[in-house]
């Protein structure tokens, strides 16, 4: 699927499969991505602000997103080398407005 600049804001995307999807500049702000699969996607400048991504699956392309502020990544799966880099991002902060979970805590950042 090609979803360049597509708006998924505040949508229910539980368990959705985005494998190899083209999600450049896609807007997932406030979307529910619980259990979603986003492996091998292109996520350049995608917005993940306020996203609930509990148990979601990501690849290294999450580093290309524009923001992950207030996102909840509890139990989400990342490549081993990606997680430390994600913790270093300045926008990996805040608290998810839906779940009340701190973004850095959900990433288990030190």
């Amino acid at each position: 699927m090609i979803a360049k600049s597509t708006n998924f804001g505040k949508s229910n995307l539980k368990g959705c499969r985005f494998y190899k999807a083209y999600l450049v500049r896609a807007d997932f702000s406030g979307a529910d991505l619980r259990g979603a699969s986003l492996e091998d996607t292109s996520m350049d400048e995608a917005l993940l602000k306020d996203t609930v991504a509990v148990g979601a699956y990501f690849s290294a392309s999450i580093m290309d997103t524009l923001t992950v502020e207030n996102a909840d990544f509890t139990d989400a799966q990342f490549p081993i080398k990606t997680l430390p880099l994600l913790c270093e991002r300045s926008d990996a902060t805040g608290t998810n407005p839906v779940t009340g979970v701190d973004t850095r805590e959900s990433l288990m950042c030190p």
Partner: protein
Amino acid sequence: MPSPLHQQNLVLTKFTMNCFQALLFLSTVVALNSFSLAPSAKAKTINAATHLGTSIPSDTIRFELVSTLFALALVVSPATSLAVSGGGLDFAGIDISGQDFSNGNYKGKDFTQGKKFLVAFLAVLQAIFSPTKIIVAI
């Protein structure tokens, strides 16, 4: 709903309907060849039995009967194999760039890239050549 999705679903639906219409036509032709409404009339088929004035071999009748049943099974039986369990493949492999999917419920949907047409093609093949229908026909 996005217009490309509607267009692709329409094309798939038309393709499926055309397949079933073709099968219906074939089954009708086979049925007409197998059974005559006027048994006393002379057989219209041109074969060795007709020219020699002999009766039609039982093997031929059996073959025609099985062919008719097979064609009817293809047409009449429900195409349950076309159904896709789970969320469906509504958005797989299509271009929805710039469209608005906000505030919607797309739970379990498939937004993967590059396999929609392959899956749809396999589903049609499965519907036509499913083992259940072949067993019913035989």
